[in-house]
């Protein structure tokens, strides 16, 4: 086993005939936090979808713990410890909070343990177990989505724009939860448009511009290049 939890090499992906990822190389060291930044339409979400098996790649390779996982279905990857919290709401709006947590038990946790873990981390969910997820506030929905990562203890957690549409204070507290998950040894890949919070908690960072990774390095390196990358892209 190498030291990389996740490695992408020369990954290309397209929608129809339009290529949106061009030869992307990216690696996530085991137990570390990697932040991927980029403006609208840079291809960040596509990158995560491809890694979670939701979208096929046209060429290149994706390795999980050194094993090539190209062509794997999303559920198989999930069973192998890949956990994606997708963009927007990562919950089932017409299921209750408890039923949403029940769905997270497909990976082998009992229902009781799942609820105990989730409600311990996010007490606000414990207050409303039978509310429909669709009627939760934006922040509560993100908590419910993150609860899956808390419950399933994945080997790789990928979070797509956790802070989108949330007040900065709330976003900070959600990122605190992510930090705790990372502290348990989970390798984390965070995607954001804006750098502020994530660069602070990342071990490494990368910038994507129109489907390419243009810089990869320490958060300090990346921060130095940030404005030029955004403007020059």
């Amino acid at each position, binding site marked *: 086993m190498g030291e990389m939890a996740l490695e992408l090499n020369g990954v290309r992906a397209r*929608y*129809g*005939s339009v290529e949106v990822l061009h030869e992307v190389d990216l690696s996530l060291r085991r137990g570390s936090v990697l932040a991927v930044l980029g403006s609208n339409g840079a291809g960040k979400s596509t990158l995560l979808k491809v890694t*979670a*098996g*939701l*979208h*096929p790649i046209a060429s290149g390779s994706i390795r999980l713990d050194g094993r090539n996982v190209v*062509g*794997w*279905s*999303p*559920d*198989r990857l*999930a*069973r192998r410890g890949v*956990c*994606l919290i*997708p963009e927007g709401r*990562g*919950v*089932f*709006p*017409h*299921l209750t909070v408890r*039923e949403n947590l*029940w*769905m*997270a*038990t*497909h*990976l082998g946790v009992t*229902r009781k343990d799942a609820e105990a873990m989730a409600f311990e981390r996010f007490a606000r969910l414990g207050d409303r177990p039978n509310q429909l997820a669709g009627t939760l506030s934006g922040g509560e929905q993100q908590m419910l989505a993150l609860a*899956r990562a808390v419950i*399933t203890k994945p080997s790789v957690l990928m979070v797509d724009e956790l802070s989108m549409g949330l007040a900065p204070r709330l976003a900070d507290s959600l990122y605190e939860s992510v930090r705790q998950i990372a502290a348990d040894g989970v390798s984390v890949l965070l995607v954001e448009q804006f750098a502020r919070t994530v660069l602070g908690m990342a071990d490494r960072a990368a910038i994507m511009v129109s489907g390419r990774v243009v810089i990869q390095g320490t958060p300090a390196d990346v921060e130095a290049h940030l404005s030029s990358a955004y403007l020059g892209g």
Partner: protein
Amino acid sequence: MQQFFSYTVSGMGTAAIYAIAAAGLVLTYTTTGVFNFAHGATSMLGAFTYWQMRFAWHLPAPVALVLCLGVLAPLFGMLLERGVMRYLDGTSETTKVVTTISLMLGLLGLSLWIWNPSASRPFPRFWEGEVLTVGGVRIPYHVVATLAITGFVAIVLWLMLKRTRFGVSMRAVVDDRSLVALNGARPHVISMASWSVGTVLAAMAGVLIAPSLKLSALPLTLLVVNAYAAAVMGKLKSLPLTFVGALVLGLGTEYLRGYQGSLRISQKLMPGFLASVPVVILLVVLVVGRSPLRGQTITRVRETVQRPTWAGSTGMGAGIVLIAALLSDVLPRTDLFTLGRIWGLGIIALSLIPVVGFGGHLSLCQMSFAGVGMVMIQHLGGRGSPLALIAAAAVPAVLGMIVAIPSFRLSGIYFALSTAAFAVLMDRWIFLLPRFRFLGMDWDIFNGGSLDLRRTRFFGLSTEGNRAFFVYGAVAFALVSVAVVAIRRSNYGQRLIALKDSPAACATLGMNIKVAKLGVFAVSAGLAGLGGALYGQGMQSATTESVQFLSSLTLLMVMVVAGLNSPGAALFAGVFLGFGLNNVIFGKLADLVPDRLGWAQGFFDKLGTNTLIVVGLAGLSLGRHPDGFVATRLRPRWDQILARPHALLGIGGTLGVAYTARVAGLIGNWPFAIVTLVVLVFVPRVIIPKGPGANAEDLSGDPEEVMIRASARGH
């Protein structure tokens, strides 16, 4: 009062069966997004299978029930998911509807294949004749059993969906399919389970309802159309509301049947109306239901078909007329008579192009419009008057606008259902009405079930002879196909297509969407009526069967397979269905098979007489190319050939030689037909081995579809 109770009891018995059928429909629709038009056909197949085991093989009833509902039905459901439904993920609603209609035709064909439709198959009720008497009301055992089973089914379904993780996953799929996979659940397993459950419910409904009908394929299949009303009352998603809907439906029908004597309606009008009550309720729910029901709007991802050119379409029209004129010389009279109907059918097929191809509204009732056209010829065309043709177009056009009204608030599958309800209403009631008096006049709409149609005379020019009629039909077809192309090229046509792609955008642009919809339906129904007139005149007599709902579906499927945007496809549909091309092709194949292989001969012979199964299979395999086989495969090659004079010259020359040889009597009709087919279909393949069709397919794959294909491969 006693009477009221006994009507209530039997109404509840019917309601219970509708509830079971509708629950299966709703379950599969919500969990997979596929509205299964083949649900009724599945019920039918279930009933036949049970009959086979119970009454042909004399298995004890419990054994037959367990085998049929506990083993075969779930297996069939899984097979359906694995073989067909899985590939519908992420495709457009049109593709889904087309696929399940194909499946319905295929299953109908299959049952006709296995169970000779002319044999009689008694299917006694469970506990025939045994009755429970409660307070003077006699309740047959089978009703008690049906009610008990339905209650049981309801409880089991409720428990499954609320109290098992499996059931919760089914509901989760409705919200977000890919998130289910991200949770580590296997989406295909969940779909497979819901198809199994849906199939079991369908089969159960079939077994329960078969005894009250004769065991006959088409009525059984269509009876479940009644259950659609219940499902729609549940907005296709709520099981409790679906059960309420079933109750309304069952009781309503039964009370009406019971108390019809006290209504002040002519008794003659009633029988067909009673049979139509469920579809009337379906229409009413669709049209005046509280919130508008919107399915997905039907959008094509990308149009691979170019805008037809004037030169191309007039050229094709002229070519068709010329070939028809030549053929009318060489073909024997009897063939000419049979062939006379291809033009009418072709025009009806053309009528689908504006409404479905350009407008994106799935119309499942074109043959009903055609039937109205025929009726006009019957009543107004007695002396071959051309005016009757005008009526044959005008009356359906008005009717078409009425049918279009639901489209103001319905879209997708819901609108398709409203057209289906209209077609079934025409089949079960209007076309079957006996002679009656109304407004001081005698009405006998379908002439007692069989029309007698005179061919038109145009100011001394008679089309009565088979030769004249054949050429006249070709001219009419050519004119209509040019007219359809004209619509496509006009501003109006552009607007229709824009409307299909983005109704919202058009609304903001200030287009009057309602007028556009009314217009396209008027045009298309008018053309269908005209086509119906010609179709009927071709046959010279017509029965209600030729214009029934099932024929509309068959025609639509053939058009879909061939290509919903192209007049060439309409010609193909006309020839295929009018001339029984299926029979000809497979009949010839059977002749070619050596006598030793008797089973193969029998197989081809059966395929030849079973158009339904062929159309169903073709639809299942080709229905996924939304623009059709002709348009995506043949046309692009031909476009390239037209750009290469020497190839064109070669093809034309070969055809000329073949035709000369035929006229000179050197070869017969069959060699001539085969040479023509080979030249037209296969030579282009050889000349341009990698047809542009291959690229077109690449382009037409929408991202989701590409994704699904890839993830399906991942397994």
